């Protein structure tokens, strides 16, 4: 199954009003890979992700999911701000998709929620906290646990490491790596974190001018001639991390 396509995007057009954000975009996400999407702020990364998960309408083109259909627990989505339900505790947040999609006994529901919380590095005691009592890193972890509640085959991550300190971001990368190895899902990750790209992404796609201008393993994207990609990976901040020298 390695190498087959999980998401097949052809000629995707998305826009608001008279502004076109994504202009005939083509991209394939392979089964079981971690794909990192980079692009300028306001360049349409989040728009692409929101279109893929069906939150935004597309004007044209095709999006085909192989074997995945929405609403049956085969998608997990980690929103940038966590988007935890503020009226529920962390444990209830993780239980919510399980409760809605499957009939588990209360005991099993608690055990699975605790197991998921432990998988993302939290304790059972953290499960009793409300989202407003959680730190930024913990919020992301609970949101990840909720996204993973139904063992999705496809995971969307919107800037998973933004707002975390380098240590926490590194731990979060390692966490996604580990969970990816055990649970074998496909990851579509929007990120700005050059370290994440290097550490966990199998392939990187660069979004500029409303289309994908470079895609492939990081080393091949680094060699792209596109001016934006050059500026991104060969700029001062990237240089200090040892990119593109």
């Amino acid at each position, binding site marked *: 199954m390695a190498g087959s396509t999980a998401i097949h995007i052809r000629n995707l057009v998305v826009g608001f009003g008279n502004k076109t954000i994504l202009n005939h975009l083509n991209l394939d996400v392979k089964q079981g890979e971690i794909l990192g999407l980079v692009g300028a702020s306001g360049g349409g990364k989040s728009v692409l992700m929101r279109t893929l998960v069906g939150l935004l309408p597309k004007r044209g083109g095709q999006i085909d999911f192989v074997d995945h259909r929405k609403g049956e*627990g085969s998608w997990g989505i980690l929103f940038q701000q966590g988007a935890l339900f*503020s*009226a529920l505790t962390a444990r209830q947040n993780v239980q919510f998709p*399980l409760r809605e*999609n*499957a*009939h*588990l*006994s209360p005991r*099993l529901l608690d*055990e*699975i929620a*605790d*197991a*998921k919380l*432990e*998988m993302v590095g939290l*304790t*059972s*005691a953290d499960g009793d906290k*409300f*989202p*407003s*009592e959680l730190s930024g890193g913990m919020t992301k972890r609970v949101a990840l646990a909720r996204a*993973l509640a*139904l*063992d999705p085959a496809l995971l969307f991550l919107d800037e998973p490491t933004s707002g975390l300190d380098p240590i926490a971001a590194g731990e979060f990368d390692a966490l996604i790596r580990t969970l990816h*190895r*055990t*649970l*074998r899902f496909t990851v579509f990750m929007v990120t700005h974190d050059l370290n994440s790209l290097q550490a966990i992404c199998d392939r990187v796609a660069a979004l500029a001018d409303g289309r994908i201008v470079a895609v492939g393993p990081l080393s091949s994207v680094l060699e792209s001639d596109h001016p934006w990609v050059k500026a991104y990976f060969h700029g001062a901040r990237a240089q200090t991390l040892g990119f593109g020298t």
Partner: protein
Amino acid sequence: MFNAPVLTANEDDPRVLTACGAWNVANVEMLERLCERAASADIAAIDLRRVTALDTVGAWLLERLARGGRTRAALTGAEGPYGDLLEEVRGLNRAEPGERKSVNALLEKLDQLGRGSRRLVSDSGAFLHMLGALSAALLGVLRHPRSFRLTSTVYQLGRVGWQAVPIMALITFLIGAIIAQQGIFHFRRFGAESYVVDMVGILVLREIGVLIVAIMVAGRSGSAYTAEIGAMKMREEIDALSTMGLDPVAVLILPRVLALVVALPILAFLGSLAALYGGGLIAWLYGGMSPAIFIARLHEAVSVTHFEVGIIKAPFMALVIGLVAAVEGLSVKGSAESLGQQTTASVVKSIFLVIVLDGLFAVFFASIGM
């Protein structure tokens, strides 16, 4: 592609089980039943070679089954990702579940009662604290008049005063009309219809006009204040203000409360006019009393004192509504639910306090003979 999960015992060795099929969340009901049935038996090993799908739920159920016996059962035959998943699940949920506190129902009721009383005390404290903070902010403004936020105050005045005029006028007009109609209907039996004018005039000017308007303002503007201030609290805007060296009370709450204190007497005045107009209209159309007679009777029946008694209460009611709205808004916590709770509490408390205040004023005016 339905692949029902099965758990069977080996024919030669009943202590070895074989699991087949899809052990995932889609079949969780069947899995739970299978595991319950198997849990009582003594299990040495579970063979997983014929499992076609496995996710965290399935893996955890197998792990729980394996832990269940006196000795740990071996989970054999899982390969690749399934093996990794089982290995991961093996380390989970190791902590002993914490002792659940058993609660006595009576004790819990008493506990709630105690908490309720303490909340009452802390609520009054918060209310007085806000009154103090507001007075301090007002003194600060009097000392440095240029720090007064005139634009904000005028804007709030427009929102709670000007924009409220149509609805307040309509409601008080209807109330005045209803009082007059009921009065005429019942007084007619004694031939005392003309006293309806006294009733409407005194009732509206002393009590109903200001009370109805205050209750409407509590529901319309008090709730809006609580929701606004609460949302600002949630999004840390209040904290941002304090760190810039500005007093949130002076910046956000003083203009709002001042606007209410100015607007409520005006609204009460307009409301009383509308109620008298409604009463007069009904007296004419339903009671057959011409407007000229109504006005003449009204002139005899009411004095400036009645109007003063009503209108003096208005700014105090406005202050109470504003204070409650501010206190509740600032006690909003992080969640959306908390915002809703505090907004409800704000409206309920301010209406209650407005009525209590009205009662206290009635006692006061009676004792000074107004």
